[in-house]
Each structure stands twice: as C-alpha cells, then as structure tokens.
C-alpha cells in the first residue's frame, strides 16, 4: 500500500510538472508566433484584399436552434460583414421557438423551390426560403436531428462557394474578421484546407443591433475566469499547435473550411458531441492517409465574440458536454495513436489530448485521494507537499498571466486599465477554486458518456442583443 502510494504520488508529480512544462513551452512558442503575426499584420492592407479579384466567395453557414432572441441581430451583423462576395445560409434546425418567424418577418422570406442536392445525408428539409430584400440570404428550414452537425451539413449541401465559414447563431463576428481569416487561406491556398479564428467572450461588452460597440470585461467572477480560459486556450494552445500543423480543433463558433474537402469526408459527423473537434481530427486522418500536403491554420486576429454561460449550472453542462465531445472524438480515432502514417498528429497532439486533456480530471481526482492518504500515512512530507502545491499553483498562474500578457502585447481588446487589472487579479483564482470545479464537471462529462448520455443539454443564454454594459 505504502509503495503504491509512493509510486502513485511520484507519477502524479511528474504528470503535473510535465503538463505545466508543456504548456509553458506552448506559451513561449505562442509569444513568438503572435509577435511575428503582429508584424505581418502591419504590412497587410485589408482594403487591398477586399478589392482583389482573387478573393474567393464565402458561404457563411449559421446553424440555428431556438435562437429567437438573437437570430435577427446575428444575421443582420453577418450580412454587414466587410467581405466582397458573401452568401449567408441560415439553417433553422427544427426550432421550437420563433426563430423562423422572426427571420420571416425581418427579411420578408419567401418560399423558393431551389435545387437542393443532399451530397451529405441530413434530416429532411422542409422548405427553402429566399429573401427579396436580401438576395445574399438563404434560409433552410429542416427537421431537427438533435445535433448541430446535421444543420451544418444541410448548409454545406446548399453552399455555393468554394469556402464555407461555420458561425454560431449566438456569436458576433467582427466586421473585418472574414477578410482577416481569408488571409490565412491565402498564405498558401493549395495547402491550407481550414483556418480557425479566435473566439472571445462577449459577456459584459456593449452590443447594438448585433454589432459590437465596446469591449468590456464581464462583471461576474465566473465570466471573467472564462475570459482567461479562452485567452489561454486560443492565444496560447491553438496558436502554438497550429505552428506545427497539429491544430486539433477549430472552434465550431468560427472556422473557414474548403467546402469540397469537408464534403469528401462526409461532412460533420452527425451526432458527434464535439463536431468541431471531430471534424478536424478526421481531416487530419483523411489528408495524412491520402499523403496530401496540407495545413490547418489558426489566426489570432479574426475575432468571433460569443456568449459564455453566466450561471454555474449552464457552465457545468457546457463543460461536461465539451468533455464528452473530447472522448467522442478521440475514441473513434484511437487507431491514429502512435502510428507513423499519421505523423506528428498521431505522435504528439493526440497523445497529449488523451493524457493531458481527457485523463486530466481522472488523474487529478485520483491525485487528491492518494496524496491525502499519503499525507495521513506520512508517506509524503507535509512541507514538500505544501511546497509542491504552491509551486504548481504559482506556475499555472504564471501561464495564465502569460496569456494575459500575450493579449496585451498583441491584440489588446481590453483597453481599460481596470479591465486589465481585473484580468490579472482573477488569474490568481483560476487555479483555485475554479480549476477544481471544472474538474468535477469534466468528470461528470465522462460519467455521462459512459452511461451513453450524449444529449446536448441546453445552456441558458441571455441573447446577444441583451448584452450591454449595464
């Protein structure tokens, strides 16, 4: 027993240390990448890109399920995006609320019997609508399949552009974000098959008619902690992984993909819990198997603002779902692990996700028990334990502050001194007690997955039009 506790504790310490050291490494890489990208932006003129005859048309696919609160503002904002050739396909995924009616009223939708070839299987389509006042808008009304992926696939079937951009109906894209993200495609159009942009927290900011007017930090602690999490995940994690062409996920809230390639792999996997993660892993698999040179890119300046949960229950549901999505994407692709044909994806990023993402809450929980037992049985010196705990906390906080620094050095969306001071202060609380809470929610996700509960539990939202400073 004592020997077991000793081995267990040693393993845990190594695991914890390794996890932080890897993240620290990612932070350093991300700082370099971001700084280079910032310099590159100085030479980029978006008006030239906009005027260029080579800028490809894009179809925005907006899956909407019970989005009556925000759908009109969202679509209005999307249609106002600065992009030369744009088509917006809203897919009403069997909403039970007034989503479709609101769109009908706002855009005077009319039934249009358009040819719709279902290259990818979806739940039955009820009606296609076009708007006489906004020719760029197409609305598909389909029966609910209980998953976002199905709605996106319907949008893919209807899309007429070579590139599609999937955007959440409750999110807001910055006006130039499409031009900025397309620049990522142009770094090498023959190889770049998908590009992800950054997703930031909208809560607390002022939104007028679906347009972001002023960026501010949310008031509640839980939302600010999510801001820090998002900054770390996007500015550090994704930026660094993408640098080595190992990006494991492009957020479902904002990403651009080659339409035909996504169709080739059968579109988004229906009933996948985390359809965004699943798609990117399948893209890696498909392209590696075909031995085709490719790049899945991430760019940190095209920004999508999204609402995050404001109450603990919704946050718990969201995190449990994310973790279910992680298992759901990793498990079917487990054969990619440590296989030479899948290159660095199989050797680095997937093992990282299994060990440091999927197993993290389990290992953490086991750790609390074994360390507690070891302390009681005097297998572990109390002072060493306290010191290690303090080190772990300080090091993890250092990384969180590093991501705030990265934000400061690069995109500086939070301009008020007070906001930065609050961000820095909350970095001190991210690893205690917020981290422990997320651990519990993630464990809940594993439990739900093992029980076969793959439901998309609804998350309470305020609606983007209601986001304001007050």
């Amino acid at each position, binding site marked *: 027993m004592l020997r077991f506790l000793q081995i267990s504790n040693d393993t845990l310490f190594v695991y914890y240390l390794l996890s932080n050291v890897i993240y620290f490494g990612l932070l350093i890489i991300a700082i370099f990448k971001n700084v280079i990208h910032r310099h590159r932006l*100085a*030479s980029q003129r978006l008006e030239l890109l906009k005027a260029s005859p*080579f800028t490809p048309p894009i179809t925005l696919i907006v899956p909407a399920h019970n989005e009556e609160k925000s759908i009109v503002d969202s679509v209005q904002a999307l249609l106002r995006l600065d992009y030369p050739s744009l088509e917006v396909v809203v897919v009403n995924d069997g909403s039970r609320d007034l989503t479709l009616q609101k769109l009908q009223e706002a855009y005077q939708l009319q039934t249009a*019997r358009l*040819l719709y070839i279902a290259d990818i299987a979806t739940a039955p389509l009820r009606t296609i609508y*076009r708007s006489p006042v906004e020719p760029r808008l197409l609305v598909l009304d389909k029966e609910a399949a209980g998953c976002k992926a199905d709605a996106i696939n319907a949008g893919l079937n209807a899309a*007429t552009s070579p590139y599609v951009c999937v955007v959440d109906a409750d999110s807001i894209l910055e006006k130039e974000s499409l031009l900025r993200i397309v620049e990522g495609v142009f*770094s090498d159009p023959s190889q770049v098959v998908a590009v992800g942009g950054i997703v930031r927290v909208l809560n607390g900011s002022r939104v007028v008619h679906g347009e972001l007017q002023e960026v501010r930090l949310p008031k509640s602690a839980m939302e600010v902690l999510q801001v820090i999490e998002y900054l770390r995940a996007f500015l550090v994690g994704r930026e660094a992984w993408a640098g080595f062409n190992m990006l494991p996920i492009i957020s479902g809230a904002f990403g651009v993909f080659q339409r035909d390639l996504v169709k080739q792999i059968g579109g988004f996997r229906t009933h996948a819990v985390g359809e965004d993660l699943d798609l990117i892993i399948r893209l890696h698999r498909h392209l590696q198997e075909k031995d085709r040179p490719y790049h899945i890119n991430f760019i940190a300046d095209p920004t999508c603002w999204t609402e995050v949960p404001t109450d603990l229950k919704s946050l718990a549901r969201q995190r449990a779902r994310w973790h279910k999505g992680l298992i759901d994407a990793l498990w079917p692709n487990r054969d990619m692990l440590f296989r030479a044909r899948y290159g660095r994806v199989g050797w680095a990023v997937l093992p990282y996700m299994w060990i440091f993402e999927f197993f993290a809450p389990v290992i953490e929980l086991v750790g609390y028990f074994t360390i507690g037992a070891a302390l009681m049985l005097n297998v572990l010196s109390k002072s060493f334990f306290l010191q*290690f705990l303090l080190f772990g906390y*300080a090091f993890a906080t250092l990384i969180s502050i590093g991501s705030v620094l990265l934000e400061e050095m690069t995109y500086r969306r939070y301009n008020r001194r007070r906001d930065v001071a609050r961000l820095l202060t909350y970095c001190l609380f991210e690893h205690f007690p917020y981290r422990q809470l997320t651990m519990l929610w993630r464990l809940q996700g594993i439990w739900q997955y093992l029980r076969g509960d793959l439901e998309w539990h609804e998350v309470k939202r305020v609606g983007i039009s209601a986001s304001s400073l007050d």
Partner: protein
Amino acid sequence: MGFASSAIEKLGPAGLVLKAILGSLLGIFLLIGFIILRRWYRARYFRRRSERTFALRTQWDDIVSGKIPLRNWRLDPLDCEIVESILLDGIETATPQQLPELLDCLRQSGLIDLRICEARMEHGWKQRTALLALGRTRAVEAIPALAEALDSPSRETRIAAIRGLGRTARREAAIPILDCVVAGQLDVPEHALKNALVNCCRSCPEILLSYLEQSRGPVRELLARVMGELASADLGEELLVLAADPLPEVRASAARALGGTNTSYTLPALHTLTNDQEWFVRLRAVVALGQVEHLGKIRILLRSLCDTNRHVRQRAAWVLAQMEPHLQQILEDVVASKDDYALQTFISELERSGAIDKVVSKLEVGSGHESVQAALLEVVEAARRQVEMTGKATAAAAGTP
C-alpha cells in the same frame, strides 16, 4: 543572499521545489511589472505623438511646400515619423495634381533615401517596414531597392518586397517581378504575387504576353490568371492563342479574359470553350458569357444548361435567369429541349433570383397563344414541384442520418 541559498540547500530535494516556487513568483511579478510598464510607456508615447501630430498638422501646408525649414522637423525622430506617415497616407489618396508636391517633400527631406538605405542595409522587421514604406511612396527610384529584396533569403522579406512593388502600381515594378517569376526564383504566396502583378500591370496588360510566351507549367497558369483579370479588347488575337493552350488552367483564364472583351471573336471563342473537355474551363466560359452583351450567347448558354457537370448547368442557368426581358423565350427553349435536369436547374435559378413570379404572372396574363401558355405554365409548375421533390429525394437517397 548566501544565507537564503544555504537554507535552500539544507532543505534537500524540497529546496529545488522552493527554488521553483520562487522562480514562478518572480516570473509572475516580472510579467505583471512588464504589463504595467508597457501600458505606461505606450500611453505616454501616444499622448506625445498625438500632441506632435496636432502641432505638425497645423503647419502642414508650410511643411509640404518647404516654407518651414526641414531641420525644424527632420531631425526629430518622432516628428519625422509623423510627417512620413501623413505623407504616405496622403500619397495613397492624392489626385495626380497633388502627388508631385507630396513626393517632392519626401524626396527633398531625404525620407525616400533613408528608406532605400534601410531597405538595402537593414535586416528583419526594420527592412520589411522600409520596403512597405517605399512601396507606398510609388516613387520610381524605390523600385530597384524593392526588386533587390526579392532575392532575400527570408520569405517574410520577399513578401514585403512583393507587396511593396505591388503598392507602387507601376509598370516598371512589374518587370523585376515577372523576371523573377519566369526564372522560377520567387517563392512567395501566390495570392500576394498575383495581386502585385494585377496592380502593376493594370495599365499595361500586354507586358504579360511576352512573359507568358516564355513560361511553362504553373508559372504560365499564374500569369494567365493575372491576364484573365486585366485583359482588354486591345489584346486581340493573343487571347485566342491562350484559349487554345494545352494547359486547362490557362484556357480557363483565357475564358475569363474573353469575358471582359466585347469583340467579334469573343462569342465564337467562348462557344468553343463551353465545349472544353475540362468542366472548370466550361464553367469559366459560362461565367464569362454572363459579362458578354450579345444575345447570341443565349443559344450557347442553353446548350451549357444541358452540360454533364452540375456546376456548369447551375451557372448557365444563373446567367440565363438574369436576362430579364428574354426569360419567357428562354423558358420556352428550355422546355423544348426536353431535358428535365436543365429545366429544373433553370427553374431553381429563377426561384433564386426571384424572377419566377414575374415569369409565371406573365404566362398567366400573357399575350401569346392561350393554350400554349397554359401548357407552359403547367410544365413550369410541374418542374417547380419536381425541384422540390429532387431535394427530398436526394436526401432520402443519401439516407437519414
């Protein structure tokens, strides 16, 4: 200090952890300190810059005309930076009458020479910034320095040089780019290269022709693509040669180019291209037909409406659906073709453009033969139902998820 480290030593293995804690805490304080200092410095810099910009703006006309001696602002780095940025912004929006004065100011103050020197002597971001600034000057003397940077071993520098050359939008800048491209010595993103060439060759697309003759493979395709965006009727039969090129990408670009030339040979050439063996060449030809102002295109498009490729059919239908005064005649012709796919595609595009209601109401109250119109109306309604069914049928055939 010695006491602290000996105390840590005494702690044994835990000492290492303690060091790590101290290191992490130090890191945290350093990061926070850096953020605070950086914020303070930037706020101070922008405040000062704003004040100086205001001061310089109030004397702007005198600065540009040279009434204010150069030494008053040229030797102060911040003033110099502000004046340069105002001048460069001004050049971008200047009328041909304003341009010489702004350029003179840049020349006489030595700012162009300074940038040329930086572009040649410096490395890294400083060099790249200089290259971009030189491009924005649109000055002809900037071109040699920009061209030299195309040979840089750094890809980022080459990109800056190509963007700079593109910004000049001068014919002289196109030549070094084209020389490098044809020699296969230029490794920059294709998009940046194409945009630079489009900007530089806009007033003289014929310059591309001689390079097109020399080039093969992907370079030829790229140059043809640029040509496709710039071609005018002046290029004459050269475009016909490209339309018969063995490379399909070149033929597709020729189709695009032909779309912008309303000449006697445009229609026959595009007609030939709509029969090309590659679907994307046919597609490009159909798109180009959309730009042609000649009713003869209707016959060609009607044939493309029966193409084997879905995209070609759809685009042909889209072009036809835009031809408002002739829609009824076109519809009759499509019905007469007895091609269900063609009819469905056309009806679908009429629905998309919103013209279907007009066509239907014209048929309902039309002036033609009543029975013919009724029959046509029936066919249209049947086709509309069929279009709707096709979507459901393909969804069913694909299988429910």
